[in-house]
């Protein structure tokens, strides 16, 4: 079965951004520009955090609105990005209700999670898990 990332217990998140930096480091870079996972406060950090990550939808709306088939559904859930087909229209970003389609402004292209689970390995408080998709 294909895997995806899930936020197991969001109330345990401390906002350390280890997952975001891990996502960048996977491709050998520092910083945050291309991270496909985002953490922000739930209205001030005293109220805790929200983790934004692609949940690998069974029928992904981002793929449905892609005019060039750059985004296609992945078997079992989620999407696959063929960057060379992307025209940077941004429909996918609008379509995702979670805001999990991140954007790379220099390339003007979406950043799509590849469900590798690298970020989850660096979550110190077991907020994130890399698990098989069960429908």
């Amino acid at each position, binding site marked *: 079965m294909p895997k995806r990332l899930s936020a197991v217990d969001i109330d345990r998140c*401390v*906002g*350390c*951004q*280890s997952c975001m*930096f891990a996502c*960048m*480091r996977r491709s*050998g*870079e*520092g*910083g*945050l*520009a*291309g991270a496909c996972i*985002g*953490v*922000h*406060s739930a*209205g*001030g*950090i*005293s109220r*805790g955090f929200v983790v934004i990550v692609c949940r690998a939808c069974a029928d992904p709306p981002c793929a449905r609105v892609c005019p060039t088939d750059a985004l296609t559904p992945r078997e079992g859930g989620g999407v696959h990005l063929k960057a060379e087909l992307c025209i940077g229209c941004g429909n996918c970003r609008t379509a995702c209700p979670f805001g999990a389609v991140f954007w790379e*402004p220099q390339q003007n292209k979406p950043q799509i999670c590849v469900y590798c689970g690298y970020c989850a390995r*660096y979550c*110190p*408080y077991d907020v994130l898990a890399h698990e098989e998709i069960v429908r």
Partner: protein
Amino acid sequence: MLPDDPLRRVLYIDLGKRKFWVEERPDLFERWLGGVGVAMHLLTEHCPAGADPLGPENPIIMAVGPLVGLYPMASKTIATFKSPHTGNLGESHAGGRSAVALRMAGYGALVIQGVSKTPIYLAIDGDQVHFRDASALWGLRSSYTVGDVLRNREPGAGERTIMRIGRAGEKQISYACVITETYRHFGRLGLGAVWGSKQLKALAISGRRALSVADRKAYRTTYDEVFKAATESDLMKKYHDLGTAMNVLPLNAIGALPTRNVQSGRFEQAETISGEHLAEQYLGRRLACAHCPVACIHLAALRVQHPKEPFFYKTVMLGYDHEPIYALGSMLGIGNPAGMLQLLDEVEIQGLDAMSTGVVLAWATEALEKGFISTVETDGVLLTWGNWSNYILAVRKIVAQPNDFYRALGRGVEHAASIYGGIEFALAFGGNEMPGYHTGPAGHLGYLTGARHSHLDSAGYSLDQKILAQGGELTPQSVARALLQEERWRQVLASLSVCFFARGVYTPEIVRKTLQTAGFDLSIESLNRLGSEILALKHTFKAREGFDIAQVRIPQRILETESPLGQIDETFMRQTLAEWTQLTAL
């Protein structure tokens, strides 16, 4: 430095002319790394000798180091300025998201100059700088509200920093702080007052970028080494588990917990304000600075009842640490944790430095007790040990400044005691109020000699405790040497802007390796040399502004109240200072 590293970019902002520009300064970062090295150099460049700390000529410098955005726990922003509190070197470090945000916005340093004619806040988003009107924010009762407002008006949720001052900063109380991300502070030496003098209410910074490394594979391997040491070894355990509040009980047990203005080193109610008790009864959430897996920020969830309604509560989340617990707890004889937390809440609302506030109030309490002042001076507030609700009233008055006495309190304990008497129990070192350790001579010598008169300069308190635990003897030579060695190495860490709590992880060898992947090839010897050079920059600045270690006052009280290492001997203190002077002159 790597050719595309944006660290080299220094953002200049002139508040008077409402102009900004960027200067590329690779020379500066190659030479001084970043963080405190660069911030000290920029301060020397831009702060004229004898500058009025609250005048337009005093610059606000903020800098970060090369490891920020690349490695965990490189999470501090170093601010330098001329301190309105001591009239000398101002240096303050804060975490939160400040460092990563500044680096991700594409800068290594920020220089804010001039004075705005009207209240203003700055919003920096990558290459854009917006000068936004803050006249509606000026005078807001609570510093928390400033954060709430900017959160809804500025971009970059999750990655931005929102720094702000409270009313204390607006009123230029000399120990007003700058608050960042609600729970972290540029606490000491009055950066908040400098902001207030420039009518700068807040500063939001956001941005998002990638950073290159010299060697991708080595980067990942070295990262894992640092990350593992931070999360799997015992090196960060103390900060991770109970947080810095875990110091309260051990310090009390050895008689080093400053109590009731250091009339004692033991507080009979230490248990109820201890890290253990707070964790058990109040700990509601843990938070981390950006890019730090340790999450040492401990928030107490304090349930406060409505003053009239019977079944009506609010829950306040308050960050606690050892220093505020000491300053607003044991130092004031407050053993009621809920009372202590409510006092801390007021200090946060006003935007004061918790440590200086506690020490100032402790002096005022003793001065009232001993008849140096009366309730005429305190404007009717009866300050007595443990009476936290009256201390809340006094905190409000320090900021509201209803009379000469509170105006004096608003300039620190040294100043207040110079007017009203009681200098022998005014606990300031080099003009800065005492930290929460009465461990022995080395601790106090650290406060006296440290460039910013902070316990974090050279950690003398840790030297005292080592001697207490392992035996041995302190000599003026050994103490002076150890303090200097520690302070020099900490200049390196602060130039990388690595959190000092991670000093056990960032050994010289790890520093060398991490820097190498960031494109800085430096030997351990050259790092050590750099540490000495940065400290020398600070000493030069301090001397230029009139600081003389031979003239420094040793508060009588610390010589009277026994420390864990026995009675502290003034001759020993003076001998160590003389030794230290000789070593720094070399």
